[in-house]
């Protein structure tokens, strides 16, 4: 009897230990990255790091501005392309589609989410880059095709599954009663959606978009393969760009050789960690609050 209780206590405590471990990983990551990037904080001021455009690691110059701009711009393009298409798709699936088509689309979206990013990158090289090149030629803007636009397109495709699936779920939780009430007053189906369903689901849809944004912000491999990787602030969507994750991925090899380089790179990892987590936490807290209602 006593043994059973002891066993329960021991196992229970080791489970709590595992929980403590899981909870501490985020902090450990933040702390570790912070400690490792500390040297560069000592050498350079934060405004200089964030706003300078001069990136010459050999000479000890680390201006992150082009990379920050590159990340923000490629993510923005992805969101502009993805959000309308995904929202319209989610609304269609939730409100107009036959339930069998809805289930089929759910499977399709799951498959899209499961495809590894390196394969999207490969597809981007085969299809999207030549497409952008042709588009550039048609618009009289010469480009190699490895550009912001190409990166934005492939990112838009990669974040679509998460925006669609979260939006769809949120829309399905709006009670049938809401639609019935609006329709009973003589609205068209679309008016009922516009004025009642979407208004009720607004917070959730916003969270879906934020989650997509966070996903796009941190995506590395696919973007790396098609965005051009030139450390200059892009002047048009046909110019190449160099987002932060790509910077980190491309240069890890040189990390140990040049002083301060590893600090700089790990600083970019730290920035990614914070920005992405901030967005994710906001979105998840909002969704949790909706669930409670």
């Amino acid at each position, binding site marked *: 009897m006593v043994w059973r209780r002891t066993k329960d206590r021991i196992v229970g405590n080791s489970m709590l230990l595992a929980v403590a471990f899981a909870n501490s990983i985020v902090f450990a990551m933040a702390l570790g990255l912070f400690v490792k990037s500390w040297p560069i904080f000592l050498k350079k001021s934060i405004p200089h790091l964030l706003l300078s455009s001069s990136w010459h690691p050999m000479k000890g110059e680390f201006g992150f501005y082009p990379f920050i701009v590159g990340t923000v711009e490629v993510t923005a393009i992805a969101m502009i392309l993805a959000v309308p298409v995904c929202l319209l798709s989610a609304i269609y699936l939730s409100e107009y589609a036959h339930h069998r088509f809805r289930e089929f689309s759910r499977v399709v979206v799951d498959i899209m989410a499961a495809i590894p990013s390196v394969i999207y990158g490969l597809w981007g090289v085969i299809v999207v880059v030549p497409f952008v090149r042709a588009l550039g030629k048609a618009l009289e803007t010469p480009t190699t095709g490895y550009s912001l636009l190409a990166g934005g397109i492939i990112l838009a495709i990669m974040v679509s599954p998460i925006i669609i699936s979260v939006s769809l779920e949120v829309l399905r939780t709006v*009670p*049938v009663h809401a639609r019935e*009430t609006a*329709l*009973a*007053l*003589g609205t068209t189906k679309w008016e009922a959606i516009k*004025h009642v369903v979407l208004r*009720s689901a607004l917070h959730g849809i916003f969270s879906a978009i934020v989650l997509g944004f966070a996903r796009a912000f941190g995506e590395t491999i696919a973007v790396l393969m098609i965005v051009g990787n030139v450390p200059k602030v892009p002047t048009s969507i046909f110019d190449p760009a160099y987002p932060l994750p790509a910077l980190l991925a491309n240069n890890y090899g040189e990390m140990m050789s040049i002083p301060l380089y590893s600090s700089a790179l790990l600083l970019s990892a730290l920035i990614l960690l914070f920005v992405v987590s901030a967005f994710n936490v906001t979105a998840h807290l909002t969704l949790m609050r909706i669930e409670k209602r």
Partner: protein
Amino acid sequence: MPHISLSNLTISYGNQKVLQNITVDIPNNEITTIIGPSGCGKTTLLKSLNRLVDLYEEIHVQGEVRIDGANIYDPKADVLALRKKVGFLSQKPYPLPMSIRDNITFGPRIHEMNGKNLLCQIQKLEKHIPIDSLCPNGRQKETKLGKNPEMAYLVEYYLRLAGLWDEVRERLDAPATQLSIGQQQRLALARALAVEPEVVLADEPTSALDPISAQLIEKQFKILKNYYTIVVVTHILRQARRIADYVIFFYLGELVEHGPAEQVFSAPRDPRTRAYISGEIS
């Protein structure tokens, strides 16, 4: 005024028949109650009168429902106009996710009803139910007539008609979800009336409410019947006795008996009706 008549209405979900061969005329300007045990198709019957049954995926409708002589199930029928003419109150009120004022003005705005025809509508109504009769304490200068005086007057008038004005007039811009469930149901009544229906359908409108709110709704129905045709589904026999002018008794999807209230309650012809009214089956 519409003449609602059902001929051989049969509704089935997939293979299951929910309504069998219903033929009956609903009298104008009276409160008709549809009574019967739960789960017998009363709600489906009600929802067939404004084609809300269209929302169910596997529904099959045969027969006719004629309102003003026109069959509403004709493929060319205008469903939006139908739903404007026939208002609906559901069992559990759903306040639209907007302010109290916007809940009321939602319908009129959707139907693009503006200043002139709004006033017209209210004037017609006032001939039968003058606004002063709805103000127990006499009417002072109530409405702050702002940018849209017709809408503001509309909001006040219908809230008074639903018996809710005094409780909400200080907070018309507050979200409607803040109201108690009794208030929400009265709001739903005002909202349904604001689109100028001629018929009001109510599906167990008081079963989710406390006794006081229930009494308020019944009182408003008695006032409204002078101008609207009201059809109420209820499983509370006592409520039917209180408010009904005409009674339809429904059992297992079949229309068993119908007639003026005194007749059905005191001298029912069908044994099933007798059993229900005496309380043997419920």
